């Protein structure tokens, strides 16, 4: 071969590569930034038209409303980055909330015990999902659509139309939903702690990165010796546990539960995750984005009510906003990539 004569690549190249990478990086970061800007704009705009929006009560309500969705979005993201999905979350929350209610109703169980029951119920559901998806190696959308029906059926079968009333619940459980420390209600606090820990873990730990690897290219993950089945299983158990916890929180927040708590929430959760920039095709996205997505969606809901938008329009506007969010995100991404290419041209 004649190749030996060829000089090493020009020195200018790594620098160009570096700066272009910086820009790409910024764009990715920008997903979260855009969401934040949208959120702030929304809040400010609403506040300008109705000053009660950001009253103490208003802010409190905003965060209280978002907490459960944020939690579920965090759990869902962990599954979605592995190129899977968990549609059963709504049903799991319902079952867990009812189980917690049954457990707590008329008893003096501590709030920790009730939450534990919720988490255990969630873990049980997560284990079923996880086993089916990771061992059965079947499309997760279908499996979890199946378990959505199954878990809901079990829940309804058990409840038989029974309603758990707030007055029968121990004080401690209800306090979790209404109480606060240093003026910050417990619920958002719990959601924030779970969010922080999950984000920290996904970014900084081998097993966390492996979840992204599995979602990015399952076959490559296998060849790299990543125990995919075990990781995916864990992701489902985690998502289940979070949904179970959310069920317990649901009980404490609303006091009254019937079997169909969080019925149909799976789509809202997936919306939040998608708006938050977690790719449904796996490998991309952060829990920060997902949490912001959840916060944005709930805030839109609250803002529409406060802005006295006709309730008939609320749903339509929600849908349109979801579409706008993902479209703009995508268009910006494409534009930036194109701009990068042209810029490289000028440099080259």
């Amino acid at each position, binding site marked *: 071969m004649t190749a030996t004569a060829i000089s090493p690549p020009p020195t200018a190249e790594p620098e160009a590569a570096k700066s272009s990478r910086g820009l790409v990086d910024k764009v990715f970061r920008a997903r979260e930034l855009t969401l934040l800007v949208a959120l702030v704009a929304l809040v400010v705009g609403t506040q300008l038209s*109705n000053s*009660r*929006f950001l009253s103490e*009560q*208003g802010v409190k*309500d905003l965060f209280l*409303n978002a907490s459960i969705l944020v939690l579920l979005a965090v759990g869902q993201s962990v599954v979605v980055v592995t190129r899977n999905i968990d549609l059963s979350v709504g049903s799991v929350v319902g079952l867990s909330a009812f189980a917690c209610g049954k457990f707590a109703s008329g008893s003096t169980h501590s709030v920790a015990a009730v939450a534990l029951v919720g988490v255990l119920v969630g873990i049980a559901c997560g284990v079923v999902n996880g086993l089916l998806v990771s061992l059965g190696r079947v499309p997760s959308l279908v499996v979890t659509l199946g378990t959505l029906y199954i878990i809901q059926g079990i829940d*309804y079968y058990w*409840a*038989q*139309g*029974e*309603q758990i*009333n*707030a*007055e029968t619940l121990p004080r401690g459980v209800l306090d979790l*939903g*209404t109480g606060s420390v240093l003026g910050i209600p417990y619920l958002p606090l719990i959601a924030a702690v779970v969010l922080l820990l999950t984000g920290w873990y996904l970014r900084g730990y081998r097993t966390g990165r492996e979840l992204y690897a599995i979602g990015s290219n399952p076959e490559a993950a296998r060849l790299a010796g990543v125990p995919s089945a075990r990781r995916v299983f864990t992701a489902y158990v985690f998502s289940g546990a979070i949904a179970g916890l959310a069920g317990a929180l*649901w009980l404490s927040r*609303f*006091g*009254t*539960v*019937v*079997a*169909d*708590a*969080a*019925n149909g929430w799976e789509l809202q959760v997936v919306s939040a995750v998608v708006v938050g920039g977690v790719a449904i095709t796996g490998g991309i996205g952060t829990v920060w984005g997902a949490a912001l997505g959840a916060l944005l969606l709930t805030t839109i*809901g*609250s803002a529409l*009510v*406060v*802005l*006295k938008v006709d*309730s*008939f329009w609320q749903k339509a506007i929600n849908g349109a906003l979801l579409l706008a969010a993902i479209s703009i995100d995508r268009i910006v991404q494409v534009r930036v990539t194109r701009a990068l290419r042209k810029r490289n041209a000028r440099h080259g």
Partner: protein
Amino acid sequence: SGTSKDDNDDKGSGGSAAAGANATADPNAALKTGLKLAFLPKQINNPYETITGEAGLAAAKEIGSEGKRVGPSDANASSQVSYINTLIQQNQDAIMIAANDANAVCGPLKQAMAKGVKVVAYDSDTAKDCRQLFINQAKSEDVGRSLVQNVAKQVGYKGKIAILSATQNATNQNTWIDYMKQELAKPEYKDMQLVKVAYGDDDDQKSFQETQGLLQANPDLKAIIAPTTVGISAAARYIDGSQYKGKVVVNGLGTPNQMRQFVKNGTVEQFSLWDPKKLGKLAVYSAAALASGQITGAEGEKFTAGDLGEYTIGKDGEIILGPPTVFNKDNVDQYDF
């Protein structure tokens, strides 16, 4: 045929006409036993429907008949239809239905009546020619007007009020709301202003957030009327945990068990409801009476509903259960449902 009813309204007379065409009432006929009576509630696991239905089943047992409850787990118009058809196949003697949609269930119900199955609507009516009887828990007009009257007294005939309803399509809700609006149009309410009708979809959490939204949008709101059991308890619970406690009146239709704590802690002064158990019971008795030939559904016919006493069929085959009970801290402990 039937009785002396002389109604020019085609649709109105349909029910009695259909019934009267092939039968005459024999008020002295014995109540048959071994009848197969089926409840078809709006939604099988709705707690209110459960109370009504269970009481009905107990009543069916009392009279020696066989009752059952079937139904969808979502409150959709179309979901009930499959059940009606199955009930026809099963040769039930009577169907007692709380309709999710007055018209969607019509076709199959007519088929049922054509096959000799008696149809009694309760709680939420179907179109008038699709059933023989409608057991109205309370006269819709009374429910709507009295809620406004009670609330007006509570707020001193002044200020903004809002309504928190169930779903946008619920027939009974919309009827009541219509009457509320008519009542509010009267001059004595000129200082009261209905700012919004919000819909909580009979979903606890949605109702909760709608309440919260109502108060944020209208901080000077004086009262919320929630003519739905899910809505009123969610509204009360939000008010209870917020700064608005004691400042905003909550009234409407609720069950004593759900509302007891709010009445006792002062969040809610009063609310109304009929006894859902009696509603279920009356539905069963009237269905049995129809199936036994005691009545045909024509106006003016009378029958006895066990210990509930005697009832007379009104215009359009409607039977009124009775006036709603107003609950407050003095009487709420006497009820358990």
